């Protein structure tokens, strides 16, 4: 690990910024590609959308795994975005921390539910 103490220590800035900035782009690309795949399969299916045609899109193990990856990507993407919003608009540290904790609970709960749905049917 790089030296980060004494005269070499980093004293300013949020150096997780670049990593999260990049993560938000990478997860965005993943989700955009996934959106195109799902939309294409919905639009290319013939006739009206039924339960069978809709659930058939997500029935293969490959598609479940891709959806799982996208759920995790979404989790991180939303975390970065919501934290940006709180950093911009919420100044009191206590309220900001409370909102960040709430966001994590909200997102992890939602992700758990979505993943359970995915492998249940």
């Amino acid at each position, binding site marked *: 690990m790089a030296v980060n103490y004494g005269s070499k220590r980093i004293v300013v800035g949020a150096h997780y910024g670049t990593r999260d900035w990049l993560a938000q782009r990478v997860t965005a*690309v993943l989700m955009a590609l996934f959106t195109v795949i799902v939309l294409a399969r919905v639009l290319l299916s013939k006739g009206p959308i039924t339960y069978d045609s*809709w*659930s058939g899109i997500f029935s293969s193990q490959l598609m479940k795994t891709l959806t799982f990856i996208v759920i995790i990507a979404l989790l991180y993407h939303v975390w970065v975005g919501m934290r940006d*919003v709180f950093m911009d608009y919420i100044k009191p540290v206590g309220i900001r921390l409370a909102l960040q904790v709430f966001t994590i609970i*909200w997102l992890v709960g*939602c992700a758990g*539910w979505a993943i359970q*749905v995915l492998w249940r*049917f």
Partner: protein
Amino acid sequence: MSETATTTARKRPEFRNINALTDLPSYRLPAAGWVSILHRVSGVLMFALMPFIIWMFDTSISSEISYARFTSVFTAGMLGLPGFIWKLVALALIWAYLHHFCAGVRHLRMDISHAAVDKRSGASSARVVLAISLLLTAALGAKLFGLY
């Protein structure tokens, strides 16, 4: 020198933090500004309604019976609210997704192309984002409400 400067200088307007109630109504945002703030609004909206989104995923995909319940929400209603209210909620989410998607692609393009960052291309790409997302929302909304 500084004393004469301070005594003779007239009080100039000061712009600090924008007050949401007194300043925002008189602000005229350029197209890129609208895309930017709506990117945030759409993101927060989808965050807030995430349980509803997953509920829709759950009921639409779990079984044929739950699929029937899912579709009936948008006709017969749910939780005391009529079907068209739920259609409006779904339409708001459709807009939020489309806008966030288009604005995000615009962002990614600006990350990889210097030509896309200058003022003129930024303004025109912002108008493209607003036009595409609103037109697609209108088209899908017409479909949702059975206009075609």
